[in-house]
């Protein structure tokens, strides 16, 4: 069973790596689209942010992907406190289709 899983995982990874290339190869060759943010209009954090975008999409992605769940978690905990204070039972429900 382990061997089977290893093979399947390997094939799945291979498909992820190869298929996009096959798909992309189906279209006519085109110049890659490069987008640049205009940093001249900004100062402070906005200037830092736009510069980060222009300099490294990798770090721009890391900051985005980390900050989204943190903010979501903060809002979720805050809402928990408010709903609990109202008196709604937040831990049980009846499972019924009709």
């Amino acid at each position, binding site marked *: 069973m382990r061997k089977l899983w290893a093979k399947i995982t390997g094939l799945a990874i291979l498909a992820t790596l190869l298929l996009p290339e096959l798909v992309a190869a189906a279209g006519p060759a085109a110049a890659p689209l490069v987008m640049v943010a205009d940093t001249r209009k900004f100062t402070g954090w906005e200037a830092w942010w736009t510069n980060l975008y222009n300099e490294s999409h990798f770090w721009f992605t890391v900051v985005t992907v980390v900050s989204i769940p943190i903010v979501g978690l903060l809002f979720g905990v805050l809402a928990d406190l408010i709903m609990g204070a109202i008196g709604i039972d937040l831990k*049980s429900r009846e499972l019924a289709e009709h």
Partner: protein
Amino acid sequence: MEFFYVMMPIAGIKIFWPGLIILGIGVGIIGGFFGMGGAWMVTPGLNILGFPMAFAIGTDIAHMAGKSLISTMRHGKFGNVDYKLGMIMLVGTVVGFEVGAQMVMWLERIGQVEKYVRILYLILLTLIAWMVFADVAKKKRKEKELAAKGLEADKLATGIEWHKTMHKIKIPPMIHFKEAQIYCSAWLPILVSFLTGWLAGILGIGGGLIRMPALIYFIGCPTHVAVGTDLFEVMISGLYGTATYTYKGRTELVAAMIMLVGAAIGAQVGTVATKYIKGYGIRIAFGLAVCGCAISILLKMMAKWFPAYGGAFDGSATALILGLVAAMSLYIGIRMIIGAKAEVAAKKAARVSVA
């Protein structure tokens, strides 16, 4: 009026920020209630607010990841999330999503992205709406037949039962999913999630719109568990989608954060409302939302086919989608308030009777 506009650092455009918050609230309510990210409402909504299509998709997915985390936390506490099923489905979702996202980049290069995305949306929405209402009609027929025999339907009984056929596939490993109350081959959720993930990648959505009915009709989850598990999936695939689109430079984090403020409130309302509405109530509302969405996309396409009436068709599509979000949010919000009031009142009465 300048106060109501905020400059988006990456896209370089000014956006009406109260519009982003309102959109966030509406989509948060609907997303938490139906178990989806709500990209089908947000992407056109962001377009209306002036976002270019390329940034609209990435920004939408980024906000969706945060909002889904809030809803998943709540659904998880209700026992509506089957984490094992969600984790298994992730494999198919991630692979499918990446294939789909690469396809959309290719379509963008040849300049056909908008046309194909809209056609695919329309076909998919029509199929989903048909499936939901066929299910409701079949359930009613079954109930009538049982009533004629003097019997009552089980509270988890459904109309369409395609999942029972799917469960006959016995390719090992077979797995029991406790919260979803199903026993099936692990390959079933993997295959379903690959297909839904691929479609999600092409459409630039988290996939909830497709995966929620797929979880119900092909895998056999009860509606509430489908909603919760789907949101868990949307959260993870949303984060993955955020990384993919952001790495390609297509995300505007400032807009996503502003939307998240509204979505945080909306997601709580929508999620708690599922506590007070039965499974088929959720399914019917979902079917109606899908119909409205399909009509709005058709109107958008007609605007392109008949340029002379383009403005009228575009305006109608916008009005329909915004009206739909507003009406659904209002309905869900009211049901949540009524349910919560009744629950709090019942608790008070119980305390008084004990005293």
